[in-house]
């Protein structure tokens, strides 16, 4: 599949933003300083909004994007639109209530958390629902999206938050464990994807043409000498060329480096804000991971073109 930059930016940054919002809503201890609290919440909200805006760049008609809110009964993309707007609206109210009133916000916060995670879940289901792309068509896909959303969001709120430890566990140590867990899930996803070829789902050139019963079928001539929308969008192969290298980059920059930073802060007792470096590093790694998520996925249309 074609790795569109707008969609990669969208899924990574909005994932991190909604992950942070979910943790803030669940009551992650942030600064008592209202200005600092506001900036943390603003950063989380901005990541989510920037991601959502980025996603509209790949639309043919962004001015009609509002129409996407109408078909929530059948469409995961529509549900994502509805869930994201609901989550951000409720989060805005939550932040204002925390800043300017003494009203209890606990239940409201939980609502924000649930809606934020629901948004990430709907994003992942846009891909996981597609039977045409066996790489994505798995319950592991939403688990990976939620795990990366929460882990990258955790690094952000941990950097900005006031907590130095939860119970006996220092925040930096928790950050390391969270990173380890998220990437372990991703490795499991990669392992499953390695066996999820089109052929393993019974999709072959023989079944695509219905001629498999006669013998071995191969493409003799494409319908046209040039490219088309389908070959660019779904029969995209260039991205796979550097798959092994990109996977190493994803693991090094997205997992190893942030874990080292977290380990260093734990070891030398450095203040939380240094974890922001781990957050930035992880996002960079996630861009590589998300590129591969698209580039390595094979669509059944390729059976008619390869």
């Amino acid at each position, binding site marked *: *599949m074609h790795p569109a930059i707008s969609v990669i930016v969208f899924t990574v940054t909005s994932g991190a933003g909604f992950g942070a919002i979910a943790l803030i809503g669940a009551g992650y201890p942030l600064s008592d300083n209202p200005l600092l609290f506001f900036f943390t919440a603003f950063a989380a909200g901005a990541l989510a909004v920037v991601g959502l805006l980025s996603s509209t760049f*790949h*639309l*043919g*008609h*962004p001015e*009609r*994007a509002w*129409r*996407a*809110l*109408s*078909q929530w*009964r*059948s*469409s*995961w*993309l*529509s549900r994502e*639109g509805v869930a994201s707007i609901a989550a951000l609206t409720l989060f805005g109210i939550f932040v204002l209530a925390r800043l300017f009133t003494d009203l209890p916000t606990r239940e409201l916060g939980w609502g924000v958390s649930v809606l934020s995670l629901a948004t990430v879940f709907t994003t992942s289901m*846009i891909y996981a*629902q*597609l*039977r*045409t*792309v066996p790489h994505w068509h798995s319950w592991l896909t939403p688990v990976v999206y939620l795990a990366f959303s929460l882990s990258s969001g955790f690094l952000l709120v941990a950097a900005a938050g006031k907590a130095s430890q939860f119970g006996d566990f220092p925040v930096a140590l928790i950050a390391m464990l969270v990173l380890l867990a998220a990437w372990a899930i991703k490795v499991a996803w990669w392992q499953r994807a390695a066996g999820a070829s089109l052929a393993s*789902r*019974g*999709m072959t*050139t023989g*079944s*695509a*043409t*219905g*001629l498999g*019963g*006669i*013998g*071995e*079928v*191969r*493409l*003799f*001539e*494409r*319908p*046209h000498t*040039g*490219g*088309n*929308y*389908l070959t660019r*969008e*779904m029969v995209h192969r260039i991205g796979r060329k550097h798959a092994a290298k990109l996977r190493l980059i994803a693991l090094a920059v997205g997992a190893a480096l942030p874990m080292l930073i977290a380990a260093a802060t734990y070891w030398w007792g450095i203040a939380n804000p240094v974890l922001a470096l781990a957050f930035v590093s992880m996002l960079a790694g996630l861009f590589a991971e998300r590129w591969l998520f698209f580039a390595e996925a094979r*669509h*059944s*249309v390729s*059976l*008619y*073109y390869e």
Partner: protein
Amino acid sequence: MTLLPAPSQKKLGLVIDLDICVGCHACAVNCKEWNTGGYGAPLGDVDAYGVSPEGAWLNRIHTFEVLPKNAQAGNPAQIVHFPKSCLHCQDAPCVTVCPTGASYKRADDGIVLVDEEKCIGCGLCAWACPYGAREMDPVENVMKKCTLCIDRIYNDNLPEVDRVPACVRTCPAHARHFGDLGDPESEVSLMVAERGGFELMPEAGTRPVNKYLPPRPKTAPKAKQVARPENNETEALDATGFLGWLDRALEKLG
């Protein structure tokens, strides 16, 4: 509305005979011509007269080579021309994924259509289609797909003979047929029953309405039917002129 309607009695669709399609692309050309002037925005092209022309087509003809299972016994590989357009699936995933309601399946006759005024061009329906039946228009940025020539088949202004999809009307080999596949007595349904018509990629779970008729089994030429000289070298002895001289000269050399 992107929820699928209750299954309709009438299931309009195409039956394509792979046995007699000659791969002339006339159906694709007539499709492009009709649908550029008909339903919705014109079918756009970019760089149409340049180095790398590209455009939206609703029907494309692929060509496959099939190596038969008994190829070892001397049976030759077979070329099959393969026209492909929207199959108007009964469980159309392109419809349910649409976030705006632009993609829909008609409750009366099962035709899958795009309301171009509502399409935001997100492309998710094209991702959901296993067959590559949908293409984004490069000029209008809306999703394009086969309409089963909805503006022909119900068009009272056309002579009755023309009230079939443009691809069916134009096919010089009569390899394309249009009809109601929901009616087991219709001409197309009988054809499917008789010839063992099949669905494309049934494992995709889309239950296409369109059906394909398989190529008829090839009759292999009987082996050693043509009498051939046992030894070709004997022919050379009869050669005359320069070759005859050369032959004789080489013969003398031993």
